[in-house]
């Protein structure tokens, strides 16, 4: 048992320490950490044995869930009585490994069929991408599903974070699918902004559209889509979430994450606009030489600017203990 004293604004409350039982929570946490570690290893083995299954998002999602549960220091209330002692039975482990083995066999068997369409921005490619996520399914065998409601309630934030990671940490597939539409939108946005500063500007519509200027033409490739900034933001925000997991308000952090992704996309459009404007005002060589490295620095600075605006808002308020001095 651990006794913790919480900070409160009331002087009277500070005199009464709040006991926090930890035995049950810690036991469950260890169990979940073990399950997630096994999941990580099994997925890595799957991808090694059957390369057609390779995708980083299930690994990231399992790792995110593991790290956040590890960081968490609160006791899940539903399991706080210590009555629930989960254990990994041999039969469950056997089913878990057998399911992964079958998945590997199936993937290797279907490789020649799936290989031509895997990674393609088509509906068949999307189905295969979704199928790769089935490497997470055998983990359900290890979880105590009879207590799934309590489990979900206790670790809903960590599970939600893992789902967000699973769905947003690899945006390239989505980009490939929407590029014909998004590329045009990005080009038109850049043109609409830049033509106020550069007379004689035009644009050509193609799969890789080009903003044409008097001195410099900018072709907008998929690599210019802002997905690099999108990914960078995801990783950096992940570090923030990990280190401050016990201090941030989860709902606000989720909102800040998605708003930040949007900010990166808009920021990228402004970045390309600046290339067009500078490149057509005598800085063409400078733009050609530094547009790659400057892009990364730009995204990094944009992240820091965004974080400095939202960081305090995301954190839980900690009330300082003020002892009122009474006049004798």
């Amino acid at each position: 048992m651990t006794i913790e004293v919480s900070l409160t604004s009331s002087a009277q409350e500070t005199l009464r320490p709040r006991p926090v039982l930890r035995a049950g929570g810690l036991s469950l946490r260890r169990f979940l950490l073990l399950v997630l570690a096994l999941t990580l290893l099994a997925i890595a083995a799957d991808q090694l044995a059957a390369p057609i299954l390779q995708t980083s998002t299930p690994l990231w999602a399992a790792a995110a869930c593991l790290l956040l549960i590890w960081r968490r220091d609160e006791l899940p209330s539903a399991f706080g009585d210590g009555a629930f002692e989960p254990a990994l039975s041999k039969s469950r482990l056997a089913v878990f490994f057998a399911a992964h083995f079958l998945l590997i066999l199936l993937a290797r068997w279907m490789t020649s069929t799936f290989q031509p369409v895997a990674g393609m921005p088509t509906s068949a490619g999307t189905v295969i991408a979704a199928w790769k996520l089935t490497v997470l399914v055998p983990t359900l065998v290890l979880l105590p599903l009879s207590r799934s409601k309590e489990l979900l309630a206790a670790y809903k934030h960590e599970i939600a974070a893992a789902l967000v990671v699973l769905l947003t940490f690899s945006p390239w597939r989505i980009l490939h699918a929407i590029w014909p539409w998004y590329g045009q939108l990005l080009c038109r946005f850049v043109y609409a902004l830049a033509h106020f500063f550069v007379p004689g500007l035009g644009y050509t519509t193609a799969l890789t559209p080009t903003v044409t200027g008097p001195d410099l033409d900018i072709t907008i490739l998929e690599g210019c889509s802002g997905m690099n900034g999108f990914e960078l933001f995801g990783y950096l925000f992940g570090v923030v979430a990990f280190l401050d997991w016990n201090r941030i308000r989860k709902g606000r952090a989720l909102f800040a994450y998605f708003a930040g992704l949007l900010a990166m996309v808009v920021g990228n459009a402004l970045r390309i606009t600046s290339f067009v404007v500078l490149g057509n005002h005598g800085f063409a060589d400078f733009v050609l030489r530094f547009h790659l490295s400057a892009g990364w620095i730009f995204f990094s600075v944009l992240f820091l600017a965004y974080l400095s605006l939202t960081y305090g808002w995301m954190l839980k308020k900690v009330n300082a203990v003020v002892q009122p001095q009474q006049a004798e």
Partner: protein
Amino acid sequence: MKKLYLVACLSFVLAPHTLLAVPQNTAHGNKGHHHHGGAPEMPGIGFGLAAAIGIAGYLVLRRRHTSQT
């Protein structure tokens, strides 16, 4: 510190393959004196530098915020 080290190791292991990708071919041909630019995906070094700047900035922000509260 131990946890940070573990995160660094895990990030290294999980580093997505896209960050190690070879830059796409951007040769579109110049027309006369005209320049032509594109911004393809850049491999690891740029990302690493940007990530280092981002994390360093965040840690400074975090320390300043902690000292204020």
